[in-house]
């Protein structure tokens, strides 16, 4: 029984729809994660090691450092928006897999 369950999950994991879902999720999530961590860490690194350059006022009295910090808010909201748009596709694929699985349950009974 347990063995059969295990095999069922294995079959599901190898299915084409699931591989496609996993691939398209990863294609977004991995680059997005690397990007946001790099963009964020650039702030303490630049401010920590080049405080003088980052103290230059660039937008009226606002320093380069402050503008960079404010841009992080925009960055976070833009990545959020992109993910929300992209995730509609993930939802469709996941729903299709769930529907088919439910159908197979009914068929096998």
């Amino acid at each position, binding site marked *: 029984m347990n063995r059969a369950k295990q095999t069922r999950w294995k079959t599901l994991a190898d299915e084409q729809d699931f591989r496609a879902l*996993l691939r398209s999720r990863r294609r977004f999530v991995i680059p997005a994660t690397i990007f946001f961590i790099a963009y964020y860490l650039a702030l303490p690194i630049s401010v920590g090691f080049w*405080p003088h350059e980052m*103290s230059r006022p660039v937008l009226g*009295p606002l320093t380069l*450092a402050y503008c960079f910090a404010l841009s*992080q808010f925009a960055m976070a909201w833009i990545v*959020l928006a992109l993910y929300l748009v992209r995730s509609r596709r993930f939802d469709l694929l996941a729903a299709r*897999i769930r529907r088919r699985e439910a159908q197979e349950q009914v068929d096998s009974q």
Partner: protein
Amino acid sequence: MIAQPSLVMFAIFVGITLVVTYWASGQSRTSRGFYTAHRRIGGLQNGWAIAGDYVSAATFLGITGLVAFYGFDGFMYSVGWLVAYLAVLLLIAEPLRNTGKYTLADLMSFRLRGRGVRAIAALSALAITLFYLIAQMVGVGALVNLVLPRVGDVIGIVGVGVLMLVYVLFGGMLATTWVQIIKAGLLLATVIGLSGLALRHFNFSLTRFFDAATAVPTAHGVSNLLQPGLLFHGPLGAWNLISLGLALVLGTAGLPHILIRFFTVPSARAARTSVAWAMVLIGVFYLLTSFMGLGAATIVGHDHIGRRMYAGQAIDYIAHHPAQETSLNAQLTQNGYIVPQPDSNLAAPLLAAQIGGSLAAAFVAAVAFATILAVVAGLTLTASSAFAHDIWFSLIRNGRGDESEHIFVARAAALAVGALAIALSIALRGFNVAFLVGLAFAVAASANVPVILLALAWRRFSRFGAIVGMLGGLVSSLALIAVSPVLMGSRAIFPLENPGIVSIPVGLLCAVLGTLLVRDPDSEAMFDQLQVRATTGLGAEV
């Protein structure tokens, strides 16, 4: 005197929330109702509740103060705490909702079956939550000291502790959620109002506002708050900043009291929607800390932020501190009061008093109380579920025991956690609270985050690796803090204030090495199931 109006407003908040608790109490008679509000909270509501759970009084009062005193360097906290939600959004929220039941340990022990992983996951959740809880309750003491000097901080702490227990014990997750939603609304309104008033002071001219922030007079000369380096400077300043940044941006994804909020929504999609709303609300809040903080520095004045002493009290103080007599006397004749000790935590209430009058200050103080109450209730619920569900029900009783026992143990655990927090907070009064919150973030980032991510993504990840990883992160972060300048001052062995830059890699390395050392075929066999369920939502708890 802001004591009376502030008490009245706080009493109104308590009254409303008690009505909510009474309404919720009928719906939390099962463990599913108690822990997760029957998973019927909508994405929008949960987003507000996450904001209410996350933005603590330490953040509201603390960050405003840090920006007021250190400008840009204080604002760094705001940036990190918002960006951190991208990690929750992209990596954690949806898989967690799809595979967990009540607690964070559920996710880890999904494939890493057995007692060891669950026990240690519960332990680290309890440790993180308790540090966070004590930080908030100690904050109550400070706030009471300010607003109601005659009440005494012990009574304040006990009062808040008892109220919070009423919400949690009788209303469970549903009441706690609504307390957090109401509080988030109040807090956001307050922050928007204060920022607007601060800008009005400069005729709504952003240029004049920021110009004023470039030249803030202090006792040590004029300082430019838009420049970096006021808080983090010296040879290790950069490393301190980077270490703190790492802990801030990764820590949130390991905070148990935030993560259990995703069990209250019906689906992974609603979990995603709730992070989206939370990011909007939290982002607006943190953006505005800039205006409140810089406003406090420019309008109230750097040297006026702190506990104020008037007339007789001031003369008494001067008599006892003859060394500073001339400067204090000058302050007294010029302002009518003295500020012997600057205290950045008072920036927000003093800004409100200056631009909105005493009623506004009373409102801000009442909102700060409400904030503490809501956060503390969420934390207690988290600790109680970690104990009742993970330790008692899964480990001691081996999954046996009926529904009424489960709910009884959950309530008893909440009571015990609440009592423990009250006692510890009274013992630790006057301790630096920001340090305790920093501890919680560093422990979460080092002990929980690497193990959660590896459990979700690495087929070979083993139980031994998870246990070693969590212990390695937990022990290294705690040990480094114990020998850091925060606790040991100039005799510190570890030079940085935040252990993140060392303890996060240590946690990750321990988890990887532990896995490579001991193979775990059971865990590998479960990986397919975990991956399918986490990604598609098949078989998720409803």
